[in-house]
């Protein structure tokens, strides 16, 4: 109790210099020991939960092997989608050093407008006749919309704020996020819009090395990998990509080297938006419905994924997405169920956020560490 009091009461802290030195030692010990307490109790909880689940499994209770496998596959495909959205956060953070809260809405806009395209295709019968061409059209529409919204927000809201104190663009992006959400709510109505059912081929299981995987999920994972490879090629091999990395490293010097910084930043937003658009198609394949608030939670989770992988680091964002997908998909059943907590699937989002907090406590630089734009934060 005494320590708590000292921490809370600066009058005591600042009394004399000797006492100051002593209380300082106290204080750091207190915070550090609290953090250690969190770390240790997290590890204990995970270990106990895991043993509980394994015990259950050996007793023949809980999910079967097949169910675990399906859960694993669907977690990875959800994670791949998070990863694609996370790329946008990571790139913008790397270049401008702020969290673009509105990126979740960029993602949502792609799904929303893609829905129109999907419905039109469905009404014309193209959706069932030529499934892959239809999906490609929806993908293009979603990518175009997301890119457009991302570039517009950059031009209208973020560009005038360049160089202002760090919190200002963050707060602006919260405003943009709300504006976009409720603009879409006004335009499309507040109800849930449902995509037409995916073509028959996709709902069948496909054998991959002897393991049956649902077609949709396989497609999601394949598209995510393709998009990631394309982005990787773009960032590392092309001239624009090199310019982007240079701007992330140092805007002024990049400008002196003859790089058009403004255009590079717009490109960053555009590429991030396009990736969110791809993510949007994957969302549509996985969950099939969309609403104006669809972007909010996946947006925050995608940011979590970006932090998990090490923000500013592109492969990290993808990896972080997959890990986050696994955490929130498997974590509740794997750990919390073993602890004897009822109805664990309700706690999915809480697990995702706890993962964020624990990552920042355990390893603030993320899984792969920071490579681009190492801002002060830890």
């Amino acid at each position: 109790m005494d320590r708590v009091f000292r921490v809370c009461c600066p009058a005591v802290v600042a009394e004399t210099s000797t006492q100051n030195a002593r209380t300082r030692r106290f204080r750091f010990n207190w915070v550090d020991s609290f953090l250690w307490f969190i770390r240790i109790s997290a590890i204990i909880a995970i270990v106990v939960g895991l043993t509980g689940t394994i015990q259950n499994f050996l007793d023949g209770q809980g999910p079967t092997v097949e169910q675990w496998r399906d859960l694993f596959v669907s977690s990875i495909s959800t994670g791949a989608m998070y990863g694609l959205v996370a790329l946008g956060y990571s790139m913008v953070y790397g270049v401008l050093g702020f969290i673009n809260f509105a990126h979740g809405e960029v993602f949502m806009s792609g799904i929303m407008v893609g829905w129109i395209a999907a419905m039109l295709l469905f009404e014309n019968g193209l959706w069932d006749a030529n499934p892959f061409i239809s999906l490609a059209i929806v993908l293009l529409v979603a990518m175009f919309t997301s890119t457009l919204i991302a570039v517009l927000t950059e031009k209208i809201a973020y560009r005038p704020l360049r160089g202002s104190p760090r919190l200002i663009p963050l707060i602006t992006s919260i405003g943009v996020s709300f504006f976009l959400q409720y603009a879409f709510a006004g335009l499309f109505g507040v109800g849930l819009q449902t995509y037409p059912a995916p073509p028959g081929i996709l709902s069948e299981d496909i054998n991959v090395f002897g393991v049956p995987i649902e077609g949709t999920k396989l497609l999601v994972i394949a598209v995510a990998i393709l998009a990631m490879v394309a982005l990787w090629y773009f960032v590392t091999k092309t001239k624009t990509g090199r310019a982007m990395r240079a701007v992330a490293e140092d805007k002024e010097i990049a400008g002196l080297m003859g790089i058009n910084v403004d255009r590079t930043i717009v490109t960053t937003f555009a590429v991030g938006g396009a990736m969110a658009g791809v993510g949007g198609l994957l969302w549509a394949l996985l969950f099939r419905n969309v609403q104006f608030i669809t972007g909010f939670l996946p947006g925050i989770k995608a940011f979590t994924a970006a932090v998990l992988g090490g923000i500013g680091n592109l492969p990290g964002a993808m990896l972080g997405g997959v890990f986050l997908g696994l955490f929130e998909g498997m974590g509740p059943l794997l750990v919390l169920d073993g602890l004897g907590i009822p109805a664990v699937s309700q706690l999915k989002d809480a697990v995702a956020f706890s993962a964020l907090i624990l990552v920042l406590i355990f390893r603030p630089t993320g899984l792969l560490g920071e490579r681009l734009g190492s801002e002060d934060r830890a």
Partner: protein
Amino acid sequence: MIDMRRTFRFGLLAGGAMAFLGGIGMIESFNERTLIDPILRMGDLFLYGTLFVIAYIAARGEINILEEPDYRAAETTATGAAVGFVATMVTVVYALLITAVDVVEFFPNMDEAMVESLTFEQGAPIGLALLGLASVIVGAVGGWLVSTADGLKQSISKVVGWVLGFALLEVVVTDIVESRDVSRLIYSPNGGLRLWSVAVIAVLVVYLSRRYSGRLTSFAAEVSNADSKSRLRRGVIAFLVFAAIVLPMLLGGILNELMINVSLFVLMGLGLNIVVGLAGLLDLGYVAFFAVGAYGTAVLTSPLSPTFSPQLNWWVALPIVFVLAAIAGLLVGTPVIRMRGDYLAIVTLGFGEIVRILLLSDWLTPLFGGSQGIRRIPGVDVPFLGEVGGTRPEFFVYLTLIFVLIAGYISYRAQNSRIGRAWAAMREDEDVAEAIGISTVSAKLLAFVTGAIIASFAGALFSAKVGAVFTNSFDVLVSIIILVVVIVGGMGSISGVIVGAFVLIGVLGGPKSPGLLAEFAEFKLLFYGAILVFMMLKRPEGLLPSVRRSRELHQDEMSQDAWLEKGGDFTADDAEGATT
């Protein structure tokens, strides 16, 4: 010479904005409210108001001081009219497209009814012509206003401001007058001002402002320049306190209800102001502390609390709730102590969501009632008055005002104390603050704890007022809205928070409660977003900024050419524009 391309672009912008307002259904639903009986409806006000503002900005860019005044006026008017014309073209094409192609399946608001509302319910050819005529006239007036003399411009904006104020706040005026017969004199039975009362208001405003404007502005300047200890300043504060004491007696039930909502947000705003405004820690999960206060009170006082139900008196529960909130503050504060800026924001947001999800989950339902919530929370026992709860808003207002006073006093004293200066130093540069011997760890924790306790005031009052707590009162939205209140009012400024809460919660409405303009319900979050972006772009220090904060921000501006031209030319007109 008029820059045709620029004018055309502005016209497209205005047309796009008008189409957008129609497309989200705003015009249609706002048109149900009449502002001035036969001639002006609220939807039209927003539709043509947007056009007016854009035409004004377009014309302002055309102004050239080297030219003759007459020519200048003609030029700006022509620019405005051209903007109006282009905007009409866009809107007409849009309306025709909607009539021709059926898009209701995708955009539920883009139907015949919307076209009707755009065209004054006159159908295609006549209505569209009317729309065009109105747009060109509004645009031309907007353009013409740019080149008028300042005095005339001021008079016009004052008259418009007061007339719109009376028209929009019809509910308040009727509620204060408390007699339909008297209010019928001003307002027509269909709602909205009568034409002749508009004339009376206009004449009165012009006359009074001519007569007293000099004195009023000099008085306002004197008050704002007076230092905090002077008699004048104290007099103003005493007057405000007096007004706060008398006002609830004059107001009717609805307005007192609204006052309670506003006060709760003032409370939370004051608490968040300590965390964000003074200490510079962006907390997006602030609602978690509000939830701790509300659920703590509910569990301790309600007889229906599922497992643990001591049924304490509200006043006995209060200190326990404070302790719980302080512990919550420490629990959230400690893990994030080493994080900065954006990371802090996202982690606190995560904490807020975790709290809500846990309260809702089956796991903790035995303790907090899950989605059923906790009902039958008793009101507050007040000597001589008995139990004061949400059913007696005229007394409950005083209770909230007392807590607002306490929170205001805490913030005021903290601001200028040793810890307040430590917060300011930490906000500006954490490393330097650490280097000059400020313990940033304890300063941060203290900010979190103080903020948490003030939020728990609001939580305890909220649960006693509503009589039940449900998890949906505590989602992220609330945190964001409190943040908007603090930012719009002015970060770090106590009076700013109060003004922000009145303007936003009082007029637009809170996350779950309607404000004075109940029509906004559907669109208020759109407005919140737009206001937040606008404030950050144009006036990041808020409506009533704290001196230190605005200096900090302007120092940064000096290096930015884009902001230099704006350079703080914020006038009373703008403030009025924001309140009406």
